[in-house]
């Protein structure tokens, strides 16, 4: 037996989630409030500077810069959605009268995506851009 909560009402499963979420979100501000009471304050402007190994920071950090893995990110979106389609299939896989058809359909799907993967490798899209 595995049911530890009456799952007939789906909300019941998520009440504990809501409770924990509220506590988890409140924890950092509460801790910081405590720190505010306990910690000393010193007046110095230097401590508000951005740390850059001791030297005066040059420019802003929020600049346009070359993300070397842009093509990976595109491929990631494709593959992650592939995995999402696998989840519902995985749960019904063992039901006797759909196993065969579900397997064949999903194998076709996986092979299509696999060809896409081989194409990416051949095109050298999955290569760290220098």
């Amino acid at each position, binding site marked *: 037996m595995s049911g530890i*909560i009456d799952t007939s009402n789906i909300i019941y*499963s998520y009440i504990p989630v809501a409770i924990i979420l509220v506590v*988890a979100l409140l924890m950092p501000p509460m801790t910081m409030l405590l720190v505010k009471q306990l910690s000393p304050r010193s007046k110095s402007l230097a401590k508000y500077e951005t740390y850059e*190994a001791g030297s005066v920071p040059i420019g802003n950090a929020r600049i346009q810069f070359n993300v070397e893995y842009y093509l990976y990110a595109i491929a990631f979106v494709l593959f*992650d959605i592939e995995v999402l389609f696998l989840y519902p299939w995985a*749960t019904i896989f063992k039901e006797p009268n759909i196993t065969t058809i579900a397997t064949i359909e999903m194998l076709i799907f996986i092979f299509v995506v696999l060809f896409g993967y081989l194409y990416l490798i051949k095109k050298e899209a999955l290569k760290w851009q220098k």
Partner: protein
Amino acid sequence: MIMMELTEILFNPWLRGILGLCLMGAIFMGAMLVVWFERKLAADVQQRLGPSRVGPHGIFQLVADAIKLLTKEDIIPANADKLLFVFGPMVLMGSIFLMLVAIPFGAVIINGDTYPIAATDMDISVLYIEAVSAVSVIGIFMIAYSSNNKYSLLGAFRNFARMIGYEVPLGICVVSVAIMAGSLNIIDIAQAQNPLWFIIKQPIGFVVFFIALMADMGRLPFDQNESEEELIAGWITEYTGMRFGLGFFAEYIHMMLGSMLVVLLFLGGWNLPTVLTSNMLLGIILPTAFFLGKVSLVILTIIMIRWAVPRFRIDQVVDLSWKKLLPLSLLNLGWVIALVLLGV
């Protein structure tokens, strides 16, 4: 009659929420112990003493550290985006503790019925756990972007590159496990490994999942977002005092929850031969003890790996995931499909 009332209490979602809060406290204590354990073990590996002053063998070192962090001044840099700087740790903590809700911390077996010690029970808990653990990347990016520090930003971008690579093999391994168990409920998955653990049925899946999980948790050799030799402290450079402590703790809690996930998905969870659990008292104690024992072994392995291997370069990490782990995880999926169709 008493059993009926007990079940009714167990079904109550509000009481489950309170149990979840207790588990939260427990994992905080656990994380403190693990930090001490890691420092002690690291010292042993490098032939040092490690923490030894506060309490016997320095076991209260973390209490002292917590007091120190609490009494440090909280500094928000002048160039930082204050709103994101404050909200970043909240998102990180929220994501980590949302993972905790769905993960059972063991089980109690009374008269052959199993009652998992978990805050909640949902049909899709594995999918849910993966989804909320992916949110932590957003928390890390908020922290890094708000800091307005070049080192932080570089660390966060590396974090994204790594996450992009390892989420896919991780997901495929979880799907393979779900196919074998016939359910996405983590409690059902643990129960499905009663005679035979999934590590024996799908060894490739275990290896891929373990590596991908290490990368997901950002443990060395996959801590490119932090790599203190080049990036100071990576994504968390600008954080001081308790704000830093929160991020630090979140990482350790993530590691502990990840180890539990490994045990639940591949190492048989709390399952024991029925002979051992038929006794009332043993049924209450043994499954949880067995489960936590295995979790400690996994944590020990992860820590030992950290102190035994050097860090990869970021492009090597990304290559490893896309060119080796992804095909291997698909191979494992095919293997699992064949096994299930053959009726093993």
